[in-house]
């Protein structure tokens, strides 16, 4: 079953054709990696899918419904959650509170209910907190619940951001360079986490430069170069694809 289907997507920034007629599909329950040289249009493609920017033409279908041109908060409420290449945690809030914000779309309490502290919000708040703690437990950062999120070590901030996205209970998790800035050990841990997340049934689409990580965890890999798709295949086939090697991976003895 296809969860995400992108057809003939285009985006221009002035004279730059950042995403040029890209089509691909993400089947339910896989980890799909998006790789390519710097400036290939990976993050732009990501932003087009999540709604941060609107495409010039083409379509994005999520779970069968068209989502191109929707705002990020709308795609989020449909079941897409994302992390950012440069960590975007909420400062002056604890790690747990950051993750609790991720539960937003599953809550109901509005301004009036919040101001009056209506009884139904008590249970809702408790559920939000419990779910947040459960996610921190799953990610192995439960002991950091009350620490100010932005004061945590860099690697842990990445995990908190991942937790915040998981708190949305997304069907599709978009990870923009989840291993950026992590050391080798942390990268391996991150890879394990992403695999475990996939095993809970969440489909993952990630942009990543760490080829060891990509080759280890991905079920499928999409390669972009200068805004165009040059390959879309299994990891082993990608490693042997001559065009990908010439454009991106490089020869062993080069």
């Amino acid at each position: 079953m296809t969860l995400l289907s992108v057809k003939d997507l285009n985006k221009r920034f002035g004279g730059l054709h950042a995403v040029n007629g890209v089509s691909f599909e993400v089947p339910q329950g896989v980890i799909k990696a998006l790789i390519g040289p710097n400036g290939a249009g990976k993050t732009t493609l990501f932003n087009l899918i999540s709604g941060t920017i609107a495409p010039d033409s083409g379509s994005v279908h999520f779970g069968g419904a068209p989502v191109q041109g929707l705002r990020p908060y709308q795609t989020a409420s449909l079941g897409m959650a994302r992390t950012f290449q440069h960590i975007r945690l909420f400062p002056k809030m604890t790690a747990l509170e950051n993750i609790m914000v991720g539960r937003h779309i599953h809550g109901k309490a509005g301004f009036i209910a919040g101001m009056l502290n209506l009884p139904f919000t008590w249970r809702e708040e408790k559920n939000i907190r419990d779910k947040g703690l459960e996610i921190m437990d799953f990610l192995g950062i439960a002991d950091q619940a009350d620490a100010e999120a932005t004061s945590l070590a860099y690697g842990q901030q990445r995990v908190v951001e991942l937790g915040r996205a998981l708190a949305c209970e997304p069907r599709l998790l978009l990870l923009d360079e989840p291993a950026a800035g992590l050391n080798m050990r942390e990268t391996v841990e991150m890879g394990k986490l992403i695999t475990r997340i996939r095993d809970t049934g969440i489909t993952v689409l990630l942009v990543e430069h760490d080829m060891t990580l990509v080759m280890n965890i991905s079920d499928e890999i999409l390669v972009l170069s200068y805004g165009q798709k040059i390959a879309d295949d299994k990891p082993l086939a990608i490693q042997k694809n001559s065009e990908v090697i010439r454009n991106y991976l490089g020869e062993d003895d080069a």
Partner: protein
Amino acid sequence: MKARYMQVLLFVLSIIAIQLATTLTDSAYHLTQLTMTAYYTILILGLCMLVGYAGQLSLGHAGFFAIGGYMSAFLTTHDLSPYKAQASVALLADWGVLTSRPDLYGGSLLTVNPWAACIAAVCLTIVVAYIIGGPVLKLKGHYLAMATLGFGIIVYRIALASSSLGAADGISDVPPFRLLPGVEITGSSSARVMNYYVAWGGVTLGMVLLLNLIHSRVGRALSSIHGAEDAADAMGIPTARYKLKAFVLTAVLASVAGVMLTHYNGGIGPSEASVMKSVRYVAIVAVGGMANLWGALIMSLLLNFLSLRGCFGVYDDAVFGGILIIIMLFVPDGLLRRKVFSDIKGLFSRNTPGEET
């Protein structure tokens, strides 16, 4: 019981203690300034939520205060008796929207009653806040500050230029506002103690509502918009709608405060709409620690009271401008922030505070 309600209880006890202290020291005349301070505090608490928690700076909230005050002052003093024969006026009278009362010269006035005027004022504020807030809240940082400043200037100039609003003199002879039988907002000295409690009761109510709000799902969402708007958006929070709602909510608080102070003072003048008032409110929120409702309340109580007692003399506005400069330069997080104790400890240790990040 939650800690925040214990704080509210402590606050209520302090309010009672202050009143008793003025009785014991035979200085009940202080209650007048304390009552006026309370109404400014309601506005400031709202502004604190908007600026400190939601991160949306407004230099136009004196404008909303003035809209509330002027609207209720105009409606409760505008004599409709010449139009008694008209169907619309007769209909309003039938609905109980109008009341007649004797005027100064023994004649009779037919005016809108204060409750109806208050509701009208709040409705007008909501409409204006939506119209202004919608486009303006797309701006960020100092662009937002400039745009709201523009709004404040417009309200001020309208108040100053409209002869129907009394131009530079403002509107006077505003009647008392009977909230409940036996409870009315009035400046008469016999009702001074009651009005003190009515006003600070209003502050307490506003405080409880806002404390609840910042500890709720919406409060978290507003803080997240403050911290990283794009990430909040990506978490499914409709950021534009939330900012607008917070803006309108605080405009309504400002407007209600304006209505009540106008009835208490028996009038309103254009200085209530002036930009310096807005600057003063923001300065108080800043000294209070931005995202700190109790800090804003304490600083509002202190500074507004001193200002109303005339302690700053002719330098009144200059003092608040100076406070803003000093706070922004030396303690941008405000004097009364949550970490104040660790900072004091920091003064005595070798590590410079703020270097831990």
